[in-house]
């Protein structure tokens, strides 16, 4: 079993619903986002257009972040998910420097979304899961997976450009879609062997 994701860039409209769903599900403090969308412009005016590259953690099989962690606080699980053990991480940020996909964030401080207003009940509960001075990252929403649900960014996508599944199962919808769409990982040349694939748009 190796969890993976396919993102079809031909369908992505750059609405950021995935980023919002991710923040909502994980309750990330203000300033922290486990998902990002890189916006960029191609072509020259008047024929230019905006393009989007949604980026969860690539859950690399050959993960530079795991190698960089001196105390084994970044671990790769048997299902392919790369996780930070918050109770172990010493906040050296070696993994942030090593990640070639900019997929990690350091919790500099835990801030509310509405600084002037009191912390909401939702924030209060969720903020307990974050420790100031440690590193956080996307984990393919492993808590949702435990409940048989797909990651929040996958199930929320209005243009249904994401497919989630098992990369090790050639019969899975994910594996078939990767093969059919000639999908490839981002920055393949780095030989990190990511679990996230893209159909280029």
């Amino acid at each position, binding site marked *: 079993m190796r969890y993976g994701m396919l993102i079809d860039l031909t369908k992505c409209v750059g609405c950021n619903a995935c980023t919002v769903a991710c923040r909502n599900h994980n309750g990330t403090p203000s300033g922290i986002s486990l998902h990002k969308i*890189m916006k960029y412009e191609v072509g020259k005016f008047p024929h230019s257009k905006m393009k989007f590259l949604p980026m969860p953690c690539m859950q690399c099989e050959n993960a530079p972040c795991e190698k*960089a962690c001196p105390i084994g606080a970044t671990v790769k699980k048997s299902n392919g998910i790369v996780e930070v053990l918050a109770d172990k991480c010493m*906040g050296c940020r070696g993994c942030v420097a*090593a990640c*070639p996909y*900019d997929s990690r964030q*350091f919790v*500099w401080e835990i801030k509310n979304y509405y600084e002037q207003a009191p912390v909401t009940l939702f924030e209060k509960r969720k903020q307990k899961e974050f420790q*100031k*001075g440690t590193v956080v990252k996307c984990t393919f929403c492993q808590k949702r997976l435990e409940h048989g649900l797909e990651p929040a960014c996958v199930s929320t996508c209005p243009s249904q450009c994401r497919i989630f599944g098992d990369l090790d199962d050639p019969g899975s919808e994910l594996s078939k879609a990767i093969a059919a769409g000639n999908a490839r990982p981002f920055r393949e040349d780095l030989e990190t062997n990511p679990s996230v694939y893209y159909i280029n748009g």
Partner: protein
Amino acid sequence: MNLETTILFILCFFALAGGAAILQQLIHGFKKTNLCDHYVWGIYVQGCFFLSSLAAGVLIILSVMILLNIKGISRLAETGSIIAFSLFIGSQILLGIDLGKPSRAILMLKSKNFHSPLTWDFYTLGSSTVLCLIYYLGILPQTRGAMLAWSLLSLLIAYLCLSVHTMFFLSRAKGGYQTNAFSGLETLLSSLLGGTALLMLSGIQMRLSGLLLILAVLLLGTTASHNIALLRQNHNSKSVLILNLAIVLLLLVEQSTEKFLQAGSIVTPTAGGSIVALTAAAASLVLVFIEKFNAVILPQRESILPEPYNQFQDKSPYRPSLKEINVLIGCFAICAFIGYGLLYVKAGW
């Protein structure tokens, strides 16, 4: 009170102020720093690399001199081991306060992930410190064999410590400048330059300006060739080059005026150094500090993701906050206090 004791008291005052700044950082975390997700490592790591580079430079010079059995270096070796010891301590303090959860650093002893450059950093810094302490305390048997073993080990570990510092951005930086693992000639040369400069400034009765000149010339050649080779990659080490050139010119002036170019004058046991040579030594320390800026901060200025994906990413430069500068100066003061204090005890002033 004699002059030495007065200096010790002044350094003690600054070290206490430094300790207070460090304590504040440990209590309040990174709140008042300008560190962010774009610049995860700032002036603390730069300072750590700077201090450890100088310390490793001193240790390498001492080890080579002992290996070559150069006579009349006992004072230099004693002072050098104290300087290196205090600098290694300072670099570890800076590394420690840069951690989000410093108390968990103890887990390093258990985990031993030798894929990680940080693990190597931890062990090389720690063992270099112990090696310096062993020399300072004089517990090393005064036999040639023991001295050879000590110097070989010190040489290896100090070199490892330096090399490790060229590896942190390997997985994301473009190949080339400051990213060549275990062969960072520029890193090695600037460390030796800094170490020599520090020994000169510490007032040892040995003339090292010839050695400083050779190192400065070699470093100039290496940096210049790197710049030519990587011209298109816009690696900015112009300030290092200009400073390096100035150091070479200063030392050439000093060497020619003192007619010091005859053979055997690279390391000469005569008193002190001229003002020109000491200025060049001080400039060498500044050069090493800038070189560490280029090694730690510059790779972070470039976006992690390649073009065109980084088009709209913030590329503003990192400027350390006043608090960060305070902490750094405080740490330097602690180093100076430890070094001077140990010299004070040893000399029985």
